[in-house]
Structures are given as C-alpha cells and as structure tokens.
C-alpha cells in the first residue's frame, strides 16, 4: 500500500467525507434555525436574527414589550438548599430560647401546643425559618402571627428555628391514628397526587416539608383547605396547592385525622 496522505484535498475520502458531513450539517442548520421556525403558524414575525437566536436557545428579551404576568399575591422569597441551617451554635439556640418566650402562649412552653396550633419542638429548622420569613413578608397570612414577627430580624428567625429544632420532639397524639388512609399510603396516581410520606417523612423527606405526626387535626385540615382554596399560597412551586386541590373533603379529613393520631 502506498503511503497516502489522508488529510489532503487530493484524497477523495477526505474531501467526500468532510464535504458530505459539512453539507448535511449546513442544510440541517438552515432548515432547523431559519426555515422551520419562520414557518411556524401563529408566531409573530420577529426578524431574521431573532428567529435564529431563538432556535439556538438564547434567552432574549422579546422586542415587543409584553407585560410579564405577576401574581396578585406575595410569593415566598425563601430558597431552601440542602444542609441549610444545620449545626446551629449554642449561642444561637440560647438567643432563640429567649425570643421564644413570646411564642409560648400558643405553641407551649416546650414547643408542644395545647391550642390547636402546630407543635414546634423538634421541627426541622428550615421549616420554621421559612414560615417565619413568609409571615414577615406576607407570603403567608395570619392575623396573629404577622404582628408577632414584624420586628424580627433575619438572625432572630434563624435563632428561633435553631431553638425549636433543638427541643426534643415529644410524642403527642390526641387520638389513635387508625388504619392508614389510601390517600396517605399511595396518594392518587391518576390525579397526580404523591403519597404524603414521599415528602413528609416515612418514605422520604424533601427540604422545606415539615414532619406532620401529632400535629393538631384542626390545624392540618385548615391548612389543606387553605391550600385547596388558594388562601394559603407560600408553596413556591404550588406543590401543596396542586395536591390539596385534587383531594376530596373526605380525604382531607382522613389524612388530617391520621397524622394527628400518629405519635
């Protein structure tokens, strides 16, 4: 075999293969970036360059000044990332304990409620922090909580979260849980509802989702109904609103009773 140069325009293998590949790529690019996008029905003519950039996936401000739709309510601003608020210092817990004196009326001296408000002892710090911030910004509304958090600083809210997370979680249940309701165990796949435990413990835990065992049934039911009606809307991706909207009143009642009865 002769020593033959491959990378050379005299070598037909080189010219044909490179030419063919480049040709296919160029034609595909012309079709995919210019022709097809400009043929799309219902798409306003935004110019040649805009069409190409859009097909390439560039994010550009539309030339027509479209109004971006804003929600009619305040949305949560808390972004929860893994490992957030872990390893609180003793000072932070101590400051939180002092601040928590004003919460004892409803949430109990040791974070265990006698007033159908949530038990906070041992709750995840991210959950407490997020709800406090949401009350403060107005993302979550409550005539009682909002005045109480109005003067709290960000550090105060972190300290409170650290303190309640530090308190031992106490098994409180007012009733027996009974048999696990279908909606809790399996969710409702055909309605896009995951089992409660997929986020709220047992099967899995997602950042930002509280544990629910032993929380007052009235509180749980009110919150689910609030999510279903949209009165409560501080779930950033609407995950709880979507779940609650799909639940029947009977399912809301049974799930609330079940979790309230769990130690």
């Amino acid at each position, binding site marked *: *075999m*002769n*020593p*033959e*140069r*491959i*990378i050379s325009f005299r*070598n037909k*293998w*080189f010219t044909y*293969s*490179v030419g063919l*590949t480049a040709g*296919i*790529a160029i034609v*595909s*690019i012309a*079709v*995919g*970036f210019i022709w*097809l*996008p400009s043929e799309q029905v219902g798409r306003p003519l935004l110019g040649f360059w805009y069409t*190409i950039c*859009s*097909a*390439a*996936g*560039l*994010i550009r401000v539309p030339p027509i000044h479209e109004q971006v739709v804003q929600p009619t309510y305040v949305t949560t601003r808390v*972004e*929860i*990332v*893994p*490992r*957030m608020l872990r390893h609180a210092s003793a000072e932070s817990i101590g400051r939180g304990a002092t601040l928590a004196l004003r919460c004892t009326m409803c949430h109990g001296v040791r974070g265990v409620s006698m007033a159908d408000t949530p038990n906070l002892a041992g709750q*995840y*710090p*991210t959950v407490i922090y997020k709800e406090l911030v949401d009350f403060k910004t107005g993302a979550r509304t409550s005539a009682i909580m909002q005045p109480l958090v109005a003067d709290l600083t960000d550090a105060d809210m972190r300290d409170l979260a650290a303190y309640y997370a530090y308190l031992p979680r106490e098994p409180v249940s007012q009733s027996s849980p009974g048999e696990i309701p279908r909606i809790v*165990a*399996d969710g*409702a*796949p*055909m309605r896009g509802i995951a*089992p409660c435990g*997929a986020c709220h*413990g047992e*099967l*899995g*835990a*997602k*950042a930002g989702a509280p544990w629910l065992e032993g929380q007052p049934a009235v509180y749980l039911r009110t919150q689910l109904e609030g999510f279903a009606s949209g009165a409560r809307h501080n779930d950033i991706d609407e995950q709880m609103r979507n779940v609650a909207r799909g639940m029947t009143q009977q399912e809301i009642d049974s799930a609330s009773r079940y979790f309230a009865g769990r130690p």
Partner: protein
Amino acid sequence: MLNSRRLVLAHFWFAFAGFGAALLLGEWQMFVRSPLHAWIGDPELYYRSVTAHGTTMAYVFPTLIAMGYGYFVAESALDRPLIGRRWAWAGLALVAVGTVTAIVPIALGLSTVLYTFYPPLIGSPFYYIGVVLAVVGSWIWVALMSVNLAAWKRQNPGVPVPFPMFATVAGAYLWAWTAVGAALEILFLILPVALGLRSTIDAGLARVFFSWTLHAIVYFWLMPTYIAFYTLVPRAIGGRLFSDQMGRISFILFLVVAMPIGIHHLFEDPEVGSGFKFLHSVFTALVAVPTLLTVFTICASVEIAGRLRGGKGLLGWLKVLPWRNPVMLGVAFSFIMLGFGGAGGLINMTYQLNTTIHNTQWVTGHFHLIFAGAVVIMYFIIAYDVWPHLTGRALDSLRLMRVQLWLWFIGVTVLTFPWHYVGILGMPRRMAFYDYSDPAIAAQAPWVVASVIGGAIVVLSAVLFFCVLVRGQLAPRVEPGAYRFSVAVHPPRNLPAALNGFGLWLALMVGLTVVNYGFPIANLLATPGTAVPAVLVGASR
C-alpha cells in the same frame, strides 16, 4: 494466538454474573408493580432496584463484554500476545471496585437516582465515584486497544489492519469520546454537590452533558454485537463475509455520527433550542445508515452460505440455511428484534411523534427490545462461540442452546411489545405504583401481566444460558484449534489509507461534536441563574 484466556474469561464471567443478578432485579420490579402483586408500600425499594438494575446493565455488563471480547479479538486477529496484560487486569480490577463502590450505597438507599442520575437529585458521592472508577477501568481498555493496534501497524507497515481489530478499535474510540459527557457531568456538576461543596446544580446543563453519553452509549453496547455479525456469523454458518470494506465503512459511520445526536433525548427539555433539536434529529436519522449497511451485508453473507449449501432461486437459499446452528438462529432473532426496535427508534427521534411516547413505557419497551433483545442475544452467541477457546472444553449442548435462544426471543418479544402498547396508551415509565383498580387504567392490566410473563420467560432463558456454560465447564478437555474469523469474499489486499486508520474519522467525530454540542453547552454555561437547589437522596432534613 490466545494467551490471555484467563483475562478474557474473567471479564465474561464477571459480566454475566452481574447480568444474572440484575436480570432478577428487573423481573422483580416488573412483578411487584403489576396487578399480580399488592403494592409494596415503599417506592424507595422499587427505585433502589431500578437503580441497581440500570447501573449494572448499562455500565457494567456491556462494558465488560466489550472489554473481554476486545482483548480476545486483539490477540486472535493480530496473532500476537496482548501488550499490557497487567494493565488489562488493573482495568478489570477498577471496574470491579467501581461496581461494588456504586452498588453498596444503592443498596443502603443512599443513591436511588436511577442510572441516568437525574439531577437535581443527588445521591451518595460513593455512587458517582464508583461509576467513574468503572469508566476509568474501561478507558484503560481503550488505551490498550489503541496501543496494540499501533504496535501491530509498526510491525506490518502498509498491510490492511484485520477487520475484527479495526472494528474493535472503532468501538473503543467511540466509547472513549462518548463517556466524556457523563464524566464532565459527574466531575464538575454532580460530585461537588454530592461532596457538600455546593448546594445548587445546573440541572439543564447536567442533562445536556448526560445526553452526550446517553445515546452513543447504546452504540457502544451494540459494538460487540455488530463485530459478531461481521466476523463470527458468516464463518460459523459456512459462508463468506460479503464485503470487508462495507464493514469498515459501517463502523466508521458509527464512529462519526453515533456521538453528536443525544439531544433527541431532550426534545421535551426547555434548556435546548429547537434548532439544535432538529440538527440532532437529522444526525440521529443518519445512524440508520450504518445499521442498514450492516443488515444488507450480513444478509448477503448469509445468502452466500445458503447458495454454497445448494440453495437455489430467489428465496430457496433461506430454506437450506443451517437453522439448527445456534449462531444462525441467534442472528435471525437478533435481526428481527433489531428491525422492530429500529422502527420504534425512528418514532423516538422524530420530534412530533416523540411527544406522544415521551417518557412512557414505550421508551422502556424500545430500549429493552434493542438492548436485551437484539444486542444481548448476540452476547450469548459470542459466549457460545468463544467459550471452547477460552476453557479448552467443548460446548456441545446444542439443543439446550437452541431452546435458550428461542426462549430469549419469545421472552423479549412478550416482554417488550405490550410495553410499547401501554406506552402508546400513555402509561408513564419509572413509576413505582400503578393503581389498576382505577377504571382509567384497568384495561392496561392484562398487557402488564403479559409483560411480567415475558420477563419470566427471559429469566428462564438466562438460567438455561448459565446451564450451558456450566455444562461446558464440566465437559472433557478438547483442543479447539486456532480461532478463525470470517473471511471476506474478496479479502482486502490494498485498502485506501482512510479505511485502514482512524485519524480522519476521529477528527470528524470531534468536529461534529463541537458543532452539535458546542453552542448549547457554552450558552448554558454563560447563562446566569440556571442552577437550582439540589435534592439530596436519603437526607432526612
């Protein structure tokens, strides 16, 4: 010349052991979420099983087959001892250590991220490190294939590289470049989060990197099968390879166009522009070309065998083919499944048709039909063909082999066709629980049960496969003689340099990758605010 028998055999046994275990997991998954079994109550167990099944079947089993078969081909085709046998053992050790490192956290429930990783889900760092170790082990194989070819070329200047080695090295280079995408994803995006150095991840960019690997990896799984089509089948059924050069062109085409097409897995993803989706769709369609060339060449080679056996007329040669020969049976089954699977693939790569079946059980059916069907059945044939040369003992359970291959063909068909169908009906894939008491999906229940039965037949076939190998191990010693590859009708004497080396084709492969992936990756890297909070698997708070 076959000196590294133990090395090759170790690869094959490790591969098939993993395959056997993962197969049982697969059938268990089918069973527990079918109407035949009550809901297990804990999706976590199901996803652990899926992750272990996928990781073993996708990363370990085919990689070890490709490596072991590669070493076998290198020694037999180049007729010289393998250079770097110690390195080869080190590569195998890395794959073994990587597998264990990856599987343990899965079993502990710390890495139920499925083998496709799915960021922003983040599992235990050991899982990803295990996968990386396995890939590094396989890169040693890539290097050894390259080194052995280069050494042979130095000794034999100007002589055409034996086709089996040419094809093997093409597969090795394809894998080397293919694995880069997932490696970048793991090293730069996932591991920093898994190790706790970062708490957010650009899931879109990670998916683009993974798509780089995800499609071409299936062609890497296909490589041993295609090598067997060309170099084993014609010889084993008493024919000639129709064209050596056509074979080389097919493997070259795989090398160039199999890689930069993975964005067709991201048709529903918003982070990639529609223009690039179209571009990748076009190049995906082109991959049909080397497959069609192969089907043509192998059918022609089989026809030669039929004519040599006295077959006459338009189709008379089909009747006289050696149908009692397991290789003949295997290649026929493989082609049938490849045909249906390939036709389904055309639907997946078409933007509009894909919207109907995206993320449904159709997709699961598709890749099981191609991989478990067309590809793995040829892995069995490879094992049957090379085993006597590795063990020095005859495999004479021909009847058992035929039954095994029939069962595999029937099993995979019964497994995957209903999967395709329920996919068209809209059944989503990768769900742990389907509520068949709901009237909306109750009608799908019989089809799902059929799939479970198909899976059981597949398991039975695998049991027979192991029986054949074990019986072979217990058989008396024989002298198998030198291993022979297929001979072409016109063995190449004077090849164009382009068909005897890889420089041009590697350059085209990398160049096309830059064209097809360069901008989407650069764009995502340059766009701020694309990272999302990671979701740690197994983290309780």
